[in-house]
């Protein structure tokens, strides 16, 4: 039995949960912040041969410390290749990228993400966000798209007001009909309270695991739409002492991400 450590925060738990999804030998496209921390943790803890790709061109680095930008020098530190954006996205489009981690201002019941705007007027938005960046690209091409985000009813909305990045679109077979590559799509949503996946037929979000200290009601109360429930909901195991040590001492000693 691995030793469990009770003293951790929810960001650390989310990163550890995400890292466990990345098996050795897999490939993952990541951005900065929590997704990158999860990929780094996986690489150091249990997946030394994890292929980490950055949209700007960094390919399979041994990341020495948390990058600030997906194009900074840390993304090519002891890397296999310093390439370009087409190289990375073409690798994804031809089917060689297994996972990606994304975020957004809003997510809906089908895993669609909004990172573009709030307000009805596209030319004069109430709030303007960065837009897709490479998120739409990774979500279109990577086999399994995952999201790490705080559980909050303002964030988890029934329908996003703007689909920047595709989830299962309208649910059912709508994504397959859209023209996006077949078989790719949202896989897991990792929050401070729970882990969700998508019911295979309707493609609606459903609870599969609850984090220690939270209940199904907490998760539902902090979601703006009705969540489905998996036949068996398990308790998500807390971080191990080893995971926390790597995360705190090697990956994020200045607590840029885990201190949030």
């Amino acid at each position, binding site marked *: 039995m691995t030793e469990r450590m009770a003293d951790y925060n929810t960001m650390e738990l989310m990163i550890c949960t995400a890292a466990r999804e990345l098996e050795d030998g897999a490939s993952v496209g990541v*951005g*900065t*912040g929590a997704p990158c921390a999860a990929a780094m943790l996986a690489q150091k803890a249990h997946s030394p041969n994890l292929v980490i790709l950055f*949209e*700007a*061109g*960094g390919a399979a680095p041994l990341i*020495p*410390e948390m*990058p*600030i*930008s*997906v*194009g*900074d*020098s840390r*993304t*090519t530190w002891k890397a296999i290749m*310093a*390439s*370009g*954006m*087409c190289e990375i*996205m073409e690798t994804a*489009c031809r089917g060689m990228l297994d996972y990606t981690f994304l975020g957004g201002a809003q997510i809906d019941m089908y895993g*669609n993400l909004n990172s*573009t705007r709030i307000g009805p*007027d*596209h*030319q*004069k*938005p*109430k*709030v*303007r*966000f*960065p*837009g*897709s*960046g*490479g*998120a*739409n*690209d990774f979500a*279109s*091409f990577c086999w399994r798209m995952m999201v790490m985000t705080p559980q909050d009813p303002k964030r988890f909305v029934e329908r996003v007001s*703007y*689909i*920047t*990045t*595709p989830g299962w*679109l309208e649910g059912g077979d*709508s*994504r397959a009909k*859209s*023209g*996006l*590559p077949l078989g790719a799509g949202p896989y897991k949503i990792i929050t401070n309270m729970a882990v969700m996946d998508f019911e295979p037929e309707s493609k609606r979000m459903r609870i599969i695991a609850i984090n220690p200290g939270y209940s199904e009601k907490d998760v539902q109360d902090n979601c703006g739409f009705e969540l489905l429930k998996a036949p068996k909901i398990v308790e998500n195991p807390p971080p191990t002492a080893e995971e926390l040590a790597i995360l705190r001492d090697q990956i994020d000693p200045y607590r*840029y991400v885990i201190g949030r």
Partner: protein
Amino acid sequence: MEVLDQGIGAIFTDPDADKAREFFRKKSRALTPKVMSVKEAVEKFVHDGDYLCIGGFGANRIPTAVCHEIVRQGRKNMGFAGHTSTHDFQILCAGEVFDKLDVAYIVGLEARGLSPNARRYMESGKVKVSEWTNYSLSVRFKAAAAGVSFYPARNVMGTDTFKYSGAKIIQCPFTGTKYAAMPAIWPDVAAIHVHEADIYGNCRIRGITVSDLDVARAAKRLIITCERLIQNDEIRRDPSYTVIPYWCVDAVCEVPYGSYPGNMYGEYFSDEDHLREWLKVEQDPDEFKRFLDKNIYSCKDHFEYIEKNGGMHKLLKLREKEFMFTKARD
């Protein structure tokens, strides 16, 4: 070819490949020296109303000196490719240089947060916006570099990113698969910062190339800034390192530390303190105006800007940081 669906976004540049060929037919192939100051390059090659593209990745290997000079010379009504743009976008918003924008990534500085001033500008209604993604703009440049009018991509379909773009959905004539056709962009002018160039514009880049090799070939006019000039003999000694040939290039400006306050692979890391200061002063428009007067409008050139922000002492620190030398100096 039947169009199955199309976005409502504007296409700001002409995707006609034959018109582009006519332009490139007349572009000089002469091996002539092109070394000049950034001021002169911007005066000659960047005009009001031009469509502009900036190389690098936001705050990594960006031609900062050219961005500052465009603002200093007060260019207006430009089109801009908001492709992987972060600090470069922030600078151009400070001068309200563009009013037509292809968006892939704007307003944010990645993990550093959002730019208050860029948000104000984008929420003002002054900018006409068309929506794309990083890869979509990459393939729009790739199409232009290849001399074809569009490129088929498998992203964006089914999303509002498609709806607010100028892309069209077509079917593959071989398989029937749907593709989003992305129209080529031939920018009027682009600026790219590289590690080394000779006086004719033959360029070497280390580290990631982002979309710059396609941007360099797609651009009608190209300004190169470089960390250092090298001899043409060195280019010819091993041509395998040349990533941009001189016939794409119109101006060569030697600007050591030219990506500052951005990162330059194998040279110096980004100045995070200074980038944080930018984001902070933007919260107050009056304070931001004073900051811009100090750092752009009153500066003669890039070196005066660097001098005002720590000079060589700062740059040596950033070199140490790039190589992760710990405690090499105090």
